[in-house]
């Protein structure tokens, strides 16, 4: 159970890679939420705030969440 269609994740990852060089200097360690349909994105230091910005713009859509400067949005260590 992934929560998004694989092709949507691919589109979102590609958008992230395009944005990464600019974002990593301007918004290090902040969260980015990407809409694979419109390619729009929202950035915030708090993941839930970035998600709320996205859902307020496009209610009911599925978004992809990543962390700028990291391989993944979240991590479990230990």
């Amino acid at each position, binding site marked *: 159970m992934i*929560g998004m269609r694989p092709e949507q*994740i691919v589109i979102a990852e590609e958008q992230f890679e395009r944005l990464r060089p600019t974002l990593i200097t301007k918004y290090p360690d902040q969260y980015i939420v990407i809409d694979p349909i419109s390619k729009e994105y929202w950035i915030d230091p708090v*993941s839930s705030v970035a*998600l709320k910005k996205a*859902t307020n713009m496009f209610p009911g859509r*599925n*978004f992809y969440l*990543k962390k700028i400067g990291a391989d993944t*949005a*979240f991590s479990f260590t230990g």
Partner: protein
Amino acid sequence: MPEIISGIDSQNNVRAEIEIEGLYKTTPYGGIIDTGFSGGLVIPLITAVDIGLEKVGASSVTLADGSVQVIPTFLSKVKIGNDTYDATTLIMGHEVLIGMELLHDYRMCISPISGEVVIEKWESIQRLSDLSESLRRLGG
């Protein structure tokens, strides 16, 4: 200052009482505080179905074994003490886990020898500290 009920359970897990507000109901849980989890909240699928959550998509997550998975992601509201927060919520596992993003506004002290855990809002502590300092200055 409202107290956040917390402590160390018989399995040596640090737990804190929170309320998770879903679309259908609000339920209290003694969630495990996972300092190794960088996100907000993790809840089991059965809990998510029970309370009803708003699905917002998916997140890439690095698991404890180093593997990377894409996890369904939801938004919930979590009440800690007297404060309610929006929480990025991942659906996985068998326990409610409270991550470090949700505890960002708090100071937490853990005393394993006594089983005591104290969680206080930092803003309240700062205000008390500022008040103490002001009174000290006034007192000369």
